[in-house]
């Protein structure tokens, strides 16, 4: 376990990946999220992950990052439809950028029954350089950040420990171009 180095090596992951993580700048106004979500459900597209936060208080702008799946033409269509929405300033596929960086944060609660389970989980948490945010008898909460792939791997490994219960919250991938 280590409180340092919670941020692993950055990686330029979106380019040439098959993932489509779209990054939007929008006016922060009532109904904006409903507009975006309605576009996806109405036209039969899927949202795999979604993150919305105000990023510019002065200009009242929010950034929406969402992951979706589809062929190249479908993604082009989604972007064209998003760009048509009145409050949308820009919509880009991070995979189209030459260089962009990804991060995701996740909190993972582990409920264990015996010390052997806990030790196995601790060892993994150490390998993955997580941060322990809470520790009580039978329950530990770890924080992990990095690429979605890294979070996935940690979860896969944890699930290999027999008898523990894992509860997860994930921010979904966010990303920024250079």
């Amino acid at each position: 376990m280590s409180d340092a180095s919670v941020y692993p090596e950055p990686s330029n992951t979106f380019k040439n990946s098959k993932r489509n993580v779209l990054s939007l700048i929008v006016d922060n106004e009532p109904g904006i999220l409903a507009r975006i979500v309605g576009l996806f459900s109405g036209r039969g597209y899927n949202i795999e992950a979604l993150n919305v936060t105000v990023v510019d208080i002065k200009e009242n702008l929010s950034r929406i990052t969402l992951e979706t799946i589809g062929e190249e033409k479908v993604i082009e269509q989604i972007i064209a439809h998003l760009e048509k929405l009145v409050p949308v300033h820009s919509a880009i596929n991070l995979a189209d950028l030459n260089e962009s960086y990804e991060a995701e944060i996740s909190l993972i609660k582990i409920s264990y029954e015996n010390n052997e389970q806990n030790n196995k989980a601790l060892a993994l948490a150490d390998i993955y350089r997580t941060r322990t945010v809470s520790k009580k008898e039978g329950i530990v909460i770890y924080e992990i950040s990095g690429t979605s792939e890294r979070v996935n791997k940690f979860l896969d490994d944890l699930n290999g420990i027999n008898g523990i219960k894992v509860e997860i919250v994930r921010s979904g991938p966010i990303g920024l171009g250079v």
Partner: protein
Amino acid sequence: MNTDKELTGAQIVLEALKEQEVDTIFGYPGGAVLPIYDAIFGQNFLKHVLVRAEAGAVHAAEGYARSSGEVGVLLVTSGPGATNVVTGLTDALMDSIPIVCITGQVPTHLIGTDAFQECDTTGITRPCTKYNYLVKDISKLSEIIHEAFEIARSGRPGPVLIDIPKNIQLQKTIYKSRKDINFRPHRIKSGSTEISKDFIESLVSHIKSSVKPVLYVGGGCLNSGLKASEELIKFAELTNIPVTTTLHGLGCYPGNGKLSIGMLGMHGTYEANLAMHNCDLMINVGARFDDRITGRLDAFSPNSTKFHFDIDKSSINKNVNVDFSTNTDIAHALSALNLYIESNNIEFNHNQISNWWGEIKEWQNTNCLNYEQGDEIIKPQHAIARLNELTKDRETIVTTEVGQHQMWAAQYFQFNKPNSWITSGGLGTMGFGMPAAIGAQMANPDALVIDIAGEASFLMNIQEIATAVQYKLPIKIFILNNEYMGMVRQWQELMHGSRYSESYVDALPDFVKLAESFHAVGLRAKNLSELDDTISEMKSINRPVIVDIWVDKKENVFPMIPSGAAHNEMLLSKYDKEKPENQEKGKVLV
């Protein structure tokens, strides 16, 4: 008006409409819009047309917009007033018609309490408007109204809704003029007026090498204004390329023009569809490759290089992948194209496509719109053909309902200029035609406005005949009465073994007496010998007229590309035995 004086929200609405030069508004009052109705009372720049149901208001605003090129405006109350316009807003969105719809809403402190006549209007209308607003702050009202008009008419036009709570209508603030508002460019999204030289050069070089070109023109050309139509005609004449139009494109290129090969698509002409199928170069001007146009996608125009002009980027590569595209406004794009051709003295060798024209002429010789008019029973096609012939001396605007009569109107009425044909294409809204005719007549008091209708569609908004009577609008409702939902019956015949499930319209009213009871005029033609006289009489009456034309009950619309079939698999008539194999597959399509 002293702009420093404080006005109520209701007065600001009126002031903004005045500044937007709106002179007609369609509406229906109710509790949540009473302050705006109070502001309408006693003013004299704005004519309010009281419809009989809110659905009528939105279609009337569409008819007004389509026939005038201006934004159509309507005003309805909260709750049911708002929900009743949902169909019309969707219709306007599908057909790119600029509308501003003002709805009343319960006071802000009651929002969310399930108050009387409360509904989540912006939530319900979000997917069926180009944009919508809930006004919660009086200080933003002026700006919102002006922005709504900009959004409605810019880029690909569409409906915009403004939901105004009653307390906002009564609060006071200083009105902000349009000229004092800096619109944020990302919210208006106007089309580009510049076109890339590469696109123009590629197009010109493809035309030069093409031996089978075709121009496929849609409603986008109409929406780009009269100039777009003029430039299109010029471009077609410079290149001698055959022109086919979609349902909404009718009139963009004159139906009687020498290069016209008629409408294409499901009920398009044989020559238009075969030209689309066999062309080597397709130039799409403001059309969106709708499923009614393309037929089976994997067999759609397999050997052509495709150019696509469309202001809406999301229309590009949506249904059909194209080779070259531009999002420049069509009037600007075609004007730049023509200028390039002329200033570079580019000549197109018309002989190069003379064989192509020869092929098209042969297809035209099949005379696909032929019908056999007997001695007595009126064929619906003939009724439209005679209507067309006998109204040539008047400036005529045709609206339609939805169904067989709509297709016959498109096939047998000739549209020679833009904005004279108003129909519900995308959504296919029965009940559209009469209120749309009311709107068109309001915008064009001197025109002969005819709603070509079916008896089933007409019944869907029949209450609006009272509106026409009240405002002395001499619209004509020309009903092709076959006692069936004709298009439903046709599909049941072709695809469901002639099992006419619920498509017979029993217990029809006597349309002549019905007209009289509304203080309109009713006429009837039961057989061929009465047809011409009835049309002439209809024309001579300067009042609303309902004309009940009894037509052949079993007639079908041909040619027809059945759903799921390709352009070269069309049925030419009921005698055509070569039905495509994938009839069953087509059954699941609409």
